[in-house]
């Protein structure tokens, strides 16, 4: 965000009241957007923090309890489970989908036969609703009847309850999300690759550098800003993406696939405990703010040195 105010030179020509008039105009233009931003972002953030210090009574009223909600959260095994699951979910999806995205981008950036088709194939999952994706993949994972078990059956193996077993459910969801996200990240790499100067690779080729060496020492380092950008988006996504849980697992079995946002949804709308949901949301807000700080720290660096 380079902030050279383009309009600055114009200002001195007008009288003193001009600055005041400018401000009035600007705030009038901002007003509609800000009313909504305050109503659905800024106020809710503050209200979440306030409600996190309350407790929902059985009759729906709320009482101030200070840090009590936080203490019960610290003692809530499902909260910790959701947090740990979220960590594994992020670790399982992010590196693999970024690696695949980079590979895909390198392929579809070449003059390969059928490049248009490959691009289409990789990117299509991105535009599908997660709910539709969950429906399709649910079938693959259905015990006995599903595609995966039919393949196993062909090898004489017995059926497996993929989504019903705590040891496999997370892996299944991770594979599906990688399928959904890799093509999206590919687009950012593709954009970055197209901005790289071909001279560098040509020079490396003239020098007799191997393709792998060129990639490792030239292309990949140059793509580092893209990788960081994609990684940050992927982290935010890993906290937001829970649609499929509603269809596929409802967080189960035994909370083996519960993620933080899904737990918040359950606490608030199934258990009707909006005060505790607020406490949980504060944790999510802290996590996202940390990501934001990293992001803006990194973006600032990029602005200064590039």
């Amino acid at each position, binding site marked *: 965000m380079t902030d050279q*105010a383009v309009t*600055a030179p114009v200002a001195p020509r007008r009288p003193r009241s001009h600055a005041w008039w400018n401000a009035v105009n*600007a*705030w009038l*233009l901002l007003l*509609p*957007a*800000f009313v*909504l931003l305050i*109503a*659905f*972002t800024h*106020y*809710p*953030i503050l*209200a979440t923090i306030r409600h996190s210090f309350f407790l929902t009574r059985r009759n729906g009223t709320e009482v101030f309890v200070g840090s009590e909600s936080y203490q019960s959260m610290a003692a809530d095994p499902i909260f910790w489970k959701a947090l740990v699951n979220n960590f594994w979910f992020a670790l399982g999806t992010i590196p693999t989908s970024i690696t695949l995205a980079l590979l*895909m981008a390198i*392929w579809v*950036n*070449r003059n390969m036969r*059928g490049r248009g*088709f490959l*691009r*289409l194939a990789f*990117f*299509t999952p*991105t*535009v599908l*609703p*997660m*709910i*539709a*994706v969950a*429906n*399709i993949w649910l*079938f*693959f994972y259905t015990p006995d009847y*599903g595609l995966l078990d039919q393949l196993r059956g062909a090898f004489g193996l017995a059926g497996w309850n993929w989504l019903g077993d705590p040891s496999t459910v997370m892996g299944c969801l991770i594979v599906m999300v990688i399928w959904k996200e890799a093509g999206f990240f590919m*687009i950012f790499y*593709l*954009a970055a*690759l197209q901005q790289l100067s*071909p001279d560098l*690779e*040509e020079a490396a*080729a003239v020098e007799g550098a191997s393709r792998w060496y060129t990639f490792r020492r030239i292309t990949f380092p140059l793509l580092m800003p893209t990788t960081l*950008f994609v990684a940050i988006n992927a982290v935010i996504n890993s906290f*937001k993406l829970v649609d499929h849980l*509603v*269809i596929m697992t409802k967080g189960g079995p035994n909370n083996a696939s519960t993620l933080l*946002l899904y737990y918040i*949804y359950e606490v608030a*709308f199934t258990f009707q405990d*909006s005060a505790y949901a*607020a406490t949980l*949301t504060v944790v*999510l*807000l802290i996590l996202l*703010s940390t990501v*934001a700080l990293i992001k803006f720290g990194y973006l600032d660096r990029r602005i200064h040195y590039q």
Partner: protein
Amino acid sequence: MNGRTHPIEAIAAWLLALLWLAPLVYAFWSALHPAAYATSFSLSAPWTLENFARAWQQAPFGRYYLNTIVLVVIILIGQLVLSTLAAYAFARFTFRGSGIAFALVLLQLMIMPDVLIVENYRMIGKLGLLDTIPAIALPYLASAFGIFLLRQTFKSVPQELVEAARVEGAGPLQILWKVYVPLARPTYVAFGLVSVSYHWNNFLWPLIVTNSVESRPLTVGLAVFGAPETGVDWSIITAATVMTMAPLLIAFLLFQRQFVQSFMRAGIR
């Protein structure tokens, strides 16, 4: 780009592409064949549209389509108007507090309405809008992403054009409409595609604020329809799934290049 592709790489690329298309191909296969062939893939399987007809009968998909289209249109128009005005304020005017105001906008890039479901539900309840289409749209009408994207574009508008318009006596809003908006057309197209696909696909928030056929969008309708306890068979569920994603898929196939480019543009900062 340069460089021959190694045959092994080409094969790997194609295998991955086929693997990536397989779930979709399966969905279409199952939707277009009788239930008996949902899991047995034989070339002689008869084709049928029966599953679509039955899905359409068993749930009010017509209504869901209408709701989704209304929703997406409301959001798109709201976002375009509000983002244009706000982006113009940031790009064109120097005023005290603009830095803080912009930071307050950017905050929404990290903490999206998707995360604030509990308090936003409360807010919608206070406004008396629960179970309406505007309730789904409202939290998304002010889009930080749209404001950011348009501000960047507006900043690149040549100052000579603005000066020329001013000399001819155009006011701030006329300058916006006659100079800035036309020059930002590619950005509008890019943002529009991203926004439409996001809100066509959105699920959790609409699930929370709607509970009747009159306001439910396609995604929530599909989830209600496909719930295991409803006892509908796979072929019909896949048919409903295909119906839900078909409009976007068709749009994507028709405007593939623009789609990919718009996502590229959308991501570059």
